Every structure is written in C-alpha cells, then in structure tokens.
C-alpha cells in the first residue's frame, strides 16, 4: 500500500544523511576502537589503555562529578523557581522571557565577560573583598569547578524553569480542586499531585539538561582554553585534545565507552521513569 512506503519515502533522505554523517562515523568509531592506530586488530587493548589513561580518568571523573552535581541542582533549583513563578500573575510573561535570555546568548558573547568576572582581579573578587572576604583565584584553583557549575546553571536554569512552568501548566485545574475538596492543604497538593504529574516532564527535562551539560565545554574552552584547570577538564576537552593529536585509537575506545555509558544511563532512567 502506498501508505506503507510513504513512511520510508519521508524518512529516507534524512535517514541517508544520518547514516552517512552520523551512523557511519559511529560504526567507524566502533571499528577503530578494536583496531590499532596503524590498522590491525587490537582486541580490547585500546579500551584497557583508555581506562588506564590518567587524563581519561581525570576527565571522566570530572564529567561525572559535574553531571552529578549539576543535574539535580539544576532541576531542583528551576523547579523551585517555577513553583514560585507559576501563577504569579502579571509580569509572568516578562519574567519568563527574561529567564530565557541566557539560553539564547551564544557562549562566545559572554566569554569575555566571564573572564572579567572571574579573573583574579575580576569583579567577583572585587565584590568579595568589599565584603571582607579573601579573593578567590577562580580559574586556577579547584574553585573553577564552581565557576563552571555557575555558568551551566545560569545558562540553563531559566530555560528549564520555563519548561517546568509549562509542565505545571499542563496539570488540569480540576485535580487541584478535587484535592482541595478532599481537604488537602497546599503542601499536600504539592507533594501528591504536582510532583507526580510532572514526572514525565522531569524525564524529558532531564534528558535535555543532560545533553546540555556537554555544551558547557564551549564556555570552558573559550575562557580557559584546551587545558584548563584540573577540576574542569572534561571528557569534551579530552576528546578535543585527542582529536588535535590524532590519537585515533584512544578516541575511538573512549567514544564507544561514552556512548555505551550514556545510552545505558538514559535507558535505565527511562525504564525507571516509566515504572
């Protein structure tokens, strides 16, 4: 029937492109992960090499730490904001718009600003010293981690808040009415109606936010370069440097590992969420 083929016809152009520019490279990556740089089978040696690689360990550790810190922080923070924002009445639209602004600002635009803020002589330190607090060397100590977290939160919080608001908006009013009628207080409504209803949204938001954690590489790279301070050396930095030095085998193994871990995590989460 025409309908059946129509589907394939619709999908085909894009699919072909995806295969060529994304899937094929992915397969190639998988292949290379089992091969030596010069060609020739290497079995799992690349994986072993990668897993024992100091830089990889550092980057992986940092990335995991970053994600583990940022994601919950972001989602919680923005949820609270969304709860505060939702139903605020007039000005809600304006507030939402202003919250969305950081998302729309290209990283390159604020790189200079970040430098001016977090420099040793930067504005943040200036404010700290005004309050009598000792200045922190942001970009060259472990404090850089918090700079990165702050940057991520600044960029994504507003956006996620708006998403939460939309999600909250999706809960039909009648449910609350019914609950109130049953004598539920505000807190009870919150915990037993609001939160469960936004669970599906939480999943999507989580995924989107997770994808965005990789984008924080942009700010980090623009402000601190290819080899930033230890704490903010992420997987993205590592892969970028491996690319520049053409460490093909390591990249391949690392990429496969990354994909596997990511895929597994998302899959597990999906399963868990849908329970």
């Amino acid at each position, binding site marked *: 029937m025409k309908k059946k083929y129509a589907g394939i016809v619709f999908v085909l152009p*894009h699919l072909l492109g*995806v295969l060529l520019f994304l899937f094929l*490279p992915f397969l190639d*990556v998988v292949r290379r992960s089992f091969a030596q740089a010069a060609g020739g089978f290497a079995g799992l040696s690349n994986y072993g090499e990668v897993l024992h690689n100091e830089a990889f360990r550092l980057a992986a550790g940092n990335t995991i730490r970053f994600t583990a810190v940022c994601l919950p922080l972001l989602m919680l923070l923005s949820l609270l904001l969304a709860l505060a924002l939702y139903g605020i009445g007039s000005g809600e639209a304006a507030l939402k718009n202003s919250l969305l602004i950081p998302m729309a600002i*290209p990283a*390159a635009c604020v790189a200079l600003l970040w430098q001016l803020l977090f420099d040793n002589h930067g504005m943040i330190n200036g404010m700290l010293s005004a309050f009598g607090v000792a200045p922190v060397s942001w970009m060259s100590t472990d404090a850089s981690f918090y700079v990165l977290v702050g940057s991520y939160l600044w960029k994504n919080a507003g956006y996620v808040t708006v998403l939460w608001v*939309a999600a909250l*908006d999706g809960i039909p009013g009648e449910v609350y009415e019914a609950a109130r009628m049953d004598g539920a207080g505000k807190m009870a409504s919150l915990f037993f109606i609001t939160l469960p209803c936004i669970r599906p949204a939480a999943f999507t938001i989580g995924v989107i936010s997770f994808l965005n954690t990789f984008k924080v590489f942009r700010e980090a790279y623009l402000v601190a370069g290819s080899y930033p301070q230890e704490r903010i050396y992420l997987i993205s930095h590592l892969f970028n440097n491996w690319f520049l030095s053409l460490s093909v085998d390591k990249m391949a193994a690392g990429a496969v590992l990354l994909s596997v871990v990511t895929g597994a995590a998302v899959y597990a989460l999906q399963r868990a969420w849908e329970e």
Partner: protein
Amino acid sequence: MMRRKKRTAGSVLFSILRCAPVAAAACVAVGPVVFLVTGSLMGRGELGEYLAPVLFGTEGFVTWRFLPMYPTFQNIVELLCDSPEFFYMFWNTMRITAGILVGQLLCGMPAAWGLARYPFRGNRAVYGLYILLMLMPFQALMLPEYLVLEKLSLNNTLWAVILPGIFSTFPVFLMYRFFTEVPEEILEAARIDGAGEGRVFLYIGLPLGRTGIVSALLLQFLECFGMIEQPLAFLKDQTLFPLALYLPEIGAERAGFAFAASLVALAVPLLLFFAGSEYLEQGIAASALKG
C-alpha cells in the same frame, strides 16, 4: 491552574517571598546583557580605567559603573562602519544557519513525519538509532565525521558544518513528538477524500505540527549561533569562521568593541527567540509532558 489570591498578611508575605527569588533570578539572567549594553556604550578610556586590573595587571579589582560616565556611540560606529570582518563572520554564521535550517525543513521535517505516522518496518529501529545518536556528544564522533568529510572533500568549506548540522537528530525528535499528536482521524478523513500522503503531510501535518516545527527551528537557530566545536574542528580557513569563533578573538583591549559585537551577535537569535517564544514554550512543554 489559577489560585485565588487571599489578601491575608501571610499571603502578602508569601507573595513577596515568592517574588523575590524569581526577581533575583531574572536579574541574574539579564545581568550579563546589562553589562554588555553598558560596556558597549563606554569609550576606550573609561573601559580602560575599569578593566585596568585585568588588562594591565594593576592593583585592585575590576570595577564597573552601570551608568557610563562618558557614554559614547564610538563602539557602535566602529562596529557598524569600520569592521567589515565582523559582518563577514556574521554572514558566515547566517549562511551556516540558513543552510542547516533549510536542510532540516527539507529533510528532517518529512523524516519526523514519517517516523511519527507510519509504522513501517524498522521504524522503531530508526527511532532508537536517532535517540542514541542524539545522546552522543559531538566529540565522540568528531574524528570519523572529519574523515568522512575529508573523503567528500568538504573539509574547510561551510558544507562541512552545514551538512552534519542538517542531519542532527534532535530536531527530528522534537518535531516527531508533535507529529504524533495529530489525530489520526483527520488524516484518515483526508485520505478518504482522496488526498495523497504528500498532501496529507503538507496540508494537515504541517499546520497542525507547526509548534514543533517552529520550536525545533528556533532551537536550531540558537544552536547555530552558538556552535563552536564543529567550526573549530572542520574549518581551517579564517575566512570561513562563524561569529562564535570570531568574537573571542577580540581581546580585552577592545572590550567596548567586543561588547558591542557581542550585543549584536546575541540580539539576532534573541529577537527571533522572543518572536517565537510562545511556540517554544508550547513545544517543549508538550514534549516534556509526554515524556
């Protein structure tokens, strides 16, 4: 959901309590833009004075004044009239963006429709593949993509950035979610009326799914203006660089000019963003709800 406001003291306090963080968040969100605006209105001398600790390593900290002492349009003029390079980079970015958006409209949109409405064999597989590819960070696929582009002799041209961008799977994902919500009955009705699949897509699917389409395009537009990794990896010619790679090159000595340039660079996606923000909210919201 609307709550009726009770004018008790508690509720007023509550109102303040809830407004404060939101207002604070809004300020934090907008703060950098304010910096950029005020900074681009300051002349070199004034900026030099404020930024001296960073520029020249003098003692003290960077200070700022939110109302410039000696406002000037010097930076704007310099940007608009004396910097052909800026515009060169800007139109590079626009070309990349246009290329990707058009490509996504032509390829991605039908793909999303096809995936959403046609349970062909392998549909699930393709869907799964798309999700998988969506999750992978660019760095994982950077090298083999580079080699593929090399084979096609596309490296160091704008196509090296445009083509992989067209076939990014996230927009398809977004549009897919909206296309799935179109009631099948309407489509069936149209088919019964004799419409072919193409017409069904064009005249029913598109209008009904436009929220998703617009939001996908919007997000992609944003993404294009912010792209750094792909141009960095695939473009060698400085003449092909997009704005995102050009702006960081403007050093702190030309801070005023850098701010002005950044302002223009963010104004473009921002305006579009605001223009389509309702679509965006609806779009993401809907997909968020559905999970």
